[in-house]
């Protein structure tokens, strides 16, 4: 098993871990963390392929994605915080105001 394959398997494992986490957990913070895991899994595969094809642009893109992810989490965490203050819970099942 060469290095590229190993890294891709790792990327898959990270993504799956995050996916399952988002699906089965109800805690808003854990779900956010799992989403980060999925994102990082995808980024890992991006870096791997960039290295393999010897292109710098892939590596540069990764930094952009990090910035976006940081901004996203900077917004998401205060939202979760505000929600938690209202209902004193982090369970996303407590929120269904958008029900049609």
């Amino acid at each position, binding site marked *: 098993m060469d290095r590229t394959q190993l890294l891709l398997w790792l990327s898959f494992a990270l993504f799956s871990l995050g*996916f399952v986490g*988002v*699906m089965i957990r*109800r805690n808003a913070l854990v*779900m956010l963390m799992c989403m980060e895991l999925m994102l990082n899994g995808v980024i890992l595969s991006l870096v791997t392929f960039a290295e393999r094809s010897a292109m710098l642009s892939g590596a540069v893109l990764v930094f952009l994605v990090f910035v976006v992810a940081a901004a996203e989490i900077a917004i998401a965490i205060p939202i979760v915080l505000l929600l938690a203050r209202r209902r004193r819970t982090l369970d*996303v*099942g407590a*929120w*269904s*105001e*958008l*029900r*049609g």
Partner: protein
Amino acid sequence: MNLLTLIVVLPLTGFLLNGLLGPRLGKSFVTVVGCGLPVLAFLATIRAFGQLDGAAGLALVESAYTWAVVGDFSFDIAFYFDRLSALMTLIVTGVGSLIHIYSTGYMKDDPSYARYFAYLNLFLFFMLLLVLGRSLLVCFVGWEGVGLASYLLIGFWFEDPAKAAAGKKAFITNRVGDAGFLLGMFLIYYALGTLDFDAVNAAFQGPVPPAVSASLVGVLLFIGATGKSAQIPLHVWLPDAMAGPTPVSALIHAATMVTAGIFMVARMSPLYELSDTALGFIMVIGAITALFMGFLGMVQNDIKRVVAYSTLSQLGYMTVALGASAYSVAVFHLMTHAFFKALLFLAAGSVIIAVHHNQDIRYMGGLKKYMPITWITSLIGSLALIGTPFLSGFYSKESIIEAVKISHLPAAHLAYWAVLIGVFVTAFYSFRMYFLVFHGKERFHQGHAHGNEDDVHHDAHHGGTPHETPWVITGPLLALALPSLAIGYMTIEPMLFGDFFGSAIYVADRHPVMHELNQEFHGAVAMGLHAITTLPFWLAAAGVGLSAFFYLRRPDIPAAIQKRFAFVYSMLINKYWFDELYSAIFASGARLLGGTLWRRGDQNIIDGLVVNGSAHLVERFSRLVKAFQSGYIYHYAFAMLIGVFALVTWFARLN
């Protein structure tokens, strides 16, 4: 050289000024604009008439602007001024101006003074468009426009539902006729590709008649004329049109608008000359109208309605003359009638003012000594109407009767008897009204007491005595009385037997009525002297004598006749039940149809299926997809991931 456009535009300016600014600028402004512009139009007409003489019998043609261009055909707003339209324009602006002046007196206390003059000017504008239009289309625009103005003026006092309804009745009845007019116009355009009077008439006059049935076109156009000129069976609107102000009745419903149908048929004379069927149809309709509408005038008690039925009957006379190919005689009668009938209406208006807006002739009587000018002018009008020798009505009516007698159409014999009996009837109802209004016992104090005719007026102080009306009212009466006396005598020779109309009216050699009439004619004086030996004169005299005997000497006799022949009386007072018949068939039919369309079509299909149906469909679909919107974030996340998987799978398969 835009004289014709000027004639038409002047009243339009009056309408715009009075309609938009009138209520703000006050009464004197409205009076000056409302009366001044029609008078200016009249002067312009006289000038144009002078130019016509210079043009040696040729018509003046003037194009104002191009209205629309369709393919290679352009509809021009163009004016056509030959002797026929010149005569009509003179009548319209001349009589119209007098009636405008009269109106300033009649309507002086009306709160909607400016609106009234705006409408009156609007009417004049459309009427001039009608008579001056070069093509049938422009004529039709005027035709519809005068209908609109008539509707607005009949319903002028629209606060009264009965008057508003009378306006609607006139408008709707005219639409029936207009449908015929439109169809006739379509056929002419289909066959000839043009609607210009000169081109159409030249085509129908040519050696090869156009490939269209002249009978069909003629009858269709005449159906339009039955609506506008109130011939049976579309006459029902005219008596109700008396709901409008009296000057309106004089201007629109006696002197000008109702003669539009007569004018149109005379204008299209080459077409009618091709078809004996159409002429016979016209003659029968005219004869029935002339006689049977006259009968109705004998029992009416409303002063304006008597004059209205008289108008219907006289329009019938004109129509009969058209049917006999005596177009110039019809237009001649149209002209004399415009003067004496406008005079009679305005005199009736003067009487109505004097007796404080009571229109029932049973509560008048003896007005002769209180209003001498109205009395003498009414007498002149009535004498002219019944055809007293040397007065204007005599020449035109006598010529009509002679023309019908000479005519060789199958219907002419019947029509001859109808117009002959009509003479007696006309004399009877005219003088019944005249005697009841101006002679006999003074009954005008009973009007307010409602009813008791035997009741001698104890309350002489009640309501005050009638007095003569101001000069703005009597002035036009005198101005109309002069032509009522003399115009027939003066113009019969050039108009009927001279070359006045030139090529404007065409009579085929197959119908030599005018030629034979000319052979019997030995000057206007001889005709008047000869009258004493003719049947119509004695019939008219008998009518006057009988009405004098009935209503001055023995008022008990008409009452007895009324009781004896109750059925006939009720038939006449109910106007042969035309209104009831129409309301039973057409009005209820239309209501039934409308109700069905409303319930089935509108409520079920439009509202039920289309409007509410589509809303229900959307609602049902929404209920279905609403289930997906649980509001739980993990459901959305799950759906999104499934979607991403599906997309990726699809993308992978694609490569």
